[in-house]
């Protein structure tokens, strides 16, 4: 069963097309990350799935409902963490969590949820006195208190310190093991890489690549960067292509076929009795792939 099915989704704001024909499927129990630069259309897309915004055209089914007309049965099964805010500042943290819990047919105990997001010490503090990152954690708590089947997280960790970020990742992983479907947006490559089963890169309202963290953008087939140092005085003569000497002594080249390139290189070196200092073979990082993908189609 697919938790989310989207076909040819278009969202326009007047003349501006924010989502330009997106189709995607998210399976139940999957963690799906939408990765893209500012203004790519992530929030527009996610808020259409949540039922907050109306689409211009296309079909959308979320947990079998059209989110525009889902009503209570739909909303009881989803949890939403919006990109920004929406908190009553005069309630305490515990009150806000308990209040949200009381709107749903089932919910997790308030203290448990507060502990999950690491706000135990702030349980009795007024929301208005929390720091930005603590507010964000509270929003995360409100998104999961109802024990939803499908959770939308729009940039859930923006503004978190590194420890809080790790903690939020643990939380997402835990939710995943309970079989929850999670749709998250993020600017952070490492976040997508650590959390997601599948990643879609979105730029200018279009999905420009889709895959698992290892296969995204054909990363596993994209070859590797081979790098080594030639000691001073060693003659680079006869160095096999694609390698070429550099004044610093560090030689670096992207290799489409790293196996063959390394074979040629090591044969050259052993025949001359040369040691290749610091020899390394590094596959392109997700960040490299991402920048290449959105670079082709980046916002101005």
């Amino acid at each position: 069963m697919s938790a989310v099915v989207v076909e040819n989704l278009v969202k326009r704001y007047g003349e501006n097309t924010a989502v330009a024909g997106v189709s995607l499927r998210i399976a139940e129990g999957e963690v799906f990350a939408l990765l893209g630069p500012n203004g790519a259309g992530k929030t527009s897309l996610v808020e259409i799935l949540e039922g907050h915004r109306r689409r211009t055209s296309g079909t959308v089914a979320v947990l079998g409902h059209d989110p525009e007309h889902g009503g209570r049965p739909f909303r009881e099964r989803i949890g939403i963490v919006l990109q920004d805010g929406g908190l009553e500042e005069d309630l305490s943290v515990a009150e806000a969590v308990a209040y949200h819990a009381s709107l749903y047919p089932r919910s997790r105990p308030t203290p448990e949820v507060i502990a999950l997001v690491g706000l135990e010490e702030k349980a009795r503090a007024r929301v208005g006195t929390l720091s930005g990152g603590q507010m964000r954690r509270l929003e995360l708590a409100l998104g999961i208190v109802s024990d939803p089947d499908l959770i939308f997280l729009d940039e859930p960790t923006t503004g978190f310190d590194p420890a809080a970020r790790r903690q939020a990742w643990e939380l997402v992983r835990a939710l995943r093991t309970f079989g929850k479907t999670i749709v998250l947006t993020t600017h952070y490559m490492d976040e997508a890489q650590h959390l997601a089963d599948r990643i879609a890169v979105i730029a200018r309202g279009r999905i420009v690549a889709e895959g698992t963290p290892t296969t995204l953008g054909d990363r596993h087939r994209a070859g590797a960067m081979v790098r080594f140092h030639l000691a001073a005085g060693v003659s680079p003569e006869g160095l096999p292509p694609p390698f070429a000497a550099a004044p610093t002594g560090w030689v670096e080249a992207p290799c489409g076929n790293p196996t063959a390139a390394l074979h040629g290189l090591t044969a050259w070196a052993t025949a001359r009795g040369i040691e290749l200092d610091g020899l390394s073979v590094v596959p392109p990082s997700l960040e490299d792939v991402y920048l290449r993908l959105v670079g082709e189609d980046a916002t101005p």
Partner: protein
Amino acid sequence: MTGSPTLASLFWTQLRIELRLFFRSPLQAFFSLIFPLLMLLVFATLFGNGRMGLLGVTAAQFYAPALAVYGAVSTAYWNLAISVVTARELGVLKRIRGTPLPPSVYMAARLAASTWIAFLAIAIMIGAGVVMYGVTVYAHTLAAAAVTFVVGVGCFAALGLVIASISPNAKTTPALTSATLLPLSFISEVFIPPSASAPAWLGQFADLFPLKHFARAFSGAFNPSLHGSGFAWSDAGGTYAIGPHVAVMAAWGTVAVVVAVRRFSWEPRPEKSR
């Protein structure tokens, strides 16, 4: 796994939250509950316990019900508009739309909270009037006063929601509510008792708006020179009649509900340049 909460329990939850939020916001509580009381002190001190103009009652007997109406209206109209716009601007309304709480239940709870606070405002004012200035309450007009209160508060709450739907942001809302409520209070027998020297057209102009009808119908219950229970259509011969006043307020309220439902937005307004 249990079933969904009933609509009644959702309403109750939301009502309790709204009341809690109101009493945690000192400024709102002050303007609804305390400020009208201060005005009673000032007016009663200024005018002493002499007879007031055309009415022939003491200052407190006129001002306690008139300012009770003012307190109720500032709660239902002024406070409701500002707190709804603030909630929208903070994204609270949007968040609520993402939960299973039905929008109609949310609105009903807000209206109920406003009505309860308006009732407190009126009770405090009349109570203070009775205790401090010997204001007289008449048992035979209480039912008419209660009907006036319910229709009046409903009408002004609906108008408050109209302001909330047309107000672009939380900064302009107080300006919109004050610019409408304050001038009307001066010509609607709220701050100033009816006087023979006022031009007739000013009275006719004020008759177009609901505030004067709220004030007249409610204050009539405290006027010893009128007779009858208040449930009458004509005030001929000094009869206490809320009928025409309630009708005007109901008409304003109905139109306001239609406009508010059409124009209401749960989303914070998108900023102009994004």
